[in-house]
């Protein structure tokens, strides 16, 4: 009897906790949708803001956001994958590797505003890259690096050892095995890591405000400045310029990030089916 009551209470608590999570997400989404849906239109997506009230659309900020995160992804992926391969396959497991891992985890928890300040000092000023896509991408890549590196390392480690043995058994060298068997086998999880980190970068505000500036501009070259969607949203809302447009931007932003997460989920699912 007593046991059954405890069981019941535990179940109820777990259920309530789970419901809270879903509830919070649901409420947030609903709130953003209700407030933002009115602003959404093709014109809102595809035209530039006009006038002091920033009527019109947000196209330049969408381009800047996609540009800077795309560039950051291109910078991060090779570095993170090479670092992870080194850590998982080549480095002698010991103090040094432990230290590198700890550094990566710490890097991941550095407040993004500090990362932004650092990006401002290093890329914008010291390296003279100015407020630009490239400064923003480099700073964002610091943010993404530990995420991609750690997920890639886990992905590599989770490739079963008997698959590696199959390759070694055929007279493959370590590098051949890593390149032709281990990385392809780990690639769905690596891609998932990259997508999640990119989603994180899309939503980043502090880093880009310090490194890309706030100028509304449709960037073409890496040295062009620009205003990201998040910064646009911040300015519109905080300065009370145009609240409906702020909510419209928020809705698009959330939709993009949700899209990223769903894509990651889809890749994991498809992979699970393929691997049996």
């Amino acid at each position, binding site marked *: 009897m007593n046991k059954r009551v405890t069981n019941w209470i535990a179940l109820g608590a777990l259920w309530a906790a789970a419901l809270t999570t879903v509830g919070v997400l649901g409420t947030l989404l609903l709130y953003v949708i209700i407030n933002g849906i009115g602003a959404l239109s093709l014109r809102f997506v595809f035209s530039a803001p006009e006038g002091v009230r920033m009527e019109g659309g947000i196209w330049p900020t969408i381009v800047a956001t996609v540009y800077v995160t795309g560039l950051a992804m291109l910078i991060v992926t090779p570095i993170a994958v090479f670092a992870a391969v080194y850590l998982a396959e080549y480095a002698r497991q010991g103090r040094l590797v432990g230290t590198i891992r700890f550094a990566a985890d710490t890097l991941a928890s550095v407040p993004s505003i500090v990362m932004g300040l650092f990006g401002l000092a290093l890329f914008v000023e010291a390296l003279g890259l100015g407020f630009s896509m490239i400064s923003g991408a480099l700073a964002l890549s610091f943010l993404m690096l530990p995420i991609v590196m750690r997920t890639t390392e886990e992905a590599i480690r989770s490739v*079963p050892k*008997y*698959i590696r*043995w*199959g*390759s*070694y*058994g*055929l*007279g*493959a*060298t370590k590098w*051949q095995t890593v390149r*032709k*068997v281990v990385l*392809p*086998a780990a690639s769905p999880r690596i891609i998932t890591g990259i997508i999640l980190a990119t989603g994180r970068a899309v939503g980043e505000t502090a880093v880009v405000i310090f490194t890309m500036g706030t100028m509304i501009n449709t960037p073409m070259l890496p040295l062009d400045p620009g205003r990201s969607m998040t910064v646009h949203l911040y300015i519109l809302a905080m300065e009370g310029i145009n609240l409906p447009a702020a909510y419209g931007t928020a809705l698009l932003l959330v939709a993009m990030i949700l899209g990223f997460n769903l894509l990651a989920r889809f890749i994991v699912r498809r992979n699970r089916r*393929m*691997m*049996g």
Partner: protein
Amino acid sequence: MIESRLHGGAAHGSDEVEAADKLSVTDLDFYYGDFQALAGVTVGVKERATTAFIGPSGCGKSTFLRCFNRMNDLIPGTRLTGRITLDGEDIYAPGVDPVDLRRRVGMIFQQPNPFPMSIYDNVAYGPRLHGVKKKARLDDIVQQSLERANVWREVKDILGRGGLTLSGGQQQRLCIARVLAVRPDVLLMDEPCSAIDPTSVQKIEDLMAELESEITIVIVTHNMQQAARVSQFTAFFLQEETNEPAELVEYGRTAELFTSPEDKRTEDYITGRFG
């Protein structure tokens, strides 16, 4: 006693000419860190014949098998003393590259382990590593190897499909094809049939019989009937005490070892009294 079996096999009424030793092991000790897994193993593996390693679980059969293609080199902390020769040459001599050795000594594992790529690419993997690039040549090798591995008929129309989509038994034969594609002299098989369906087991035993005239096969198996069916020579290993190293108890012609074992422990094992 063992010596007489090693060298006197032909005298026991067999009219075949005794083949030469392809692999020869002298005084082998093997260690995982501080733990000694094998002690004083001396045995020969006959060329173009099938040799079975039998013995209870944990007696070091897989460990011993992995010494022949230096797969144990990949496990940190392992160490070995003694001598193993392939065609008379010491495979642990300085200057021997294990990567080259493994091309000549292929291995099949208990768990089928196709790579996550197409059936075709699985088989072409080895030849590509070793520099075969021409499509026509690769096509030939892939078909031939799959035929020799007794799986061509089942996969010839789906070569582009993922290797992991096949059944376990087909996967195992795919792995055999993958190894045959690099034309090894020796084929090591570590319990190749313990995780697959009976039809595939039959097909693997058939292909072994066909390969026997061309290559040297060493198979580890827990299945006495299988050892009796597929092998001409059998070696029985036993670890008498836990934490003690295992030893080679008896080696000889399969027919003799199974009908009139010289060692009491061999008899106990093959009649199922322990293990």
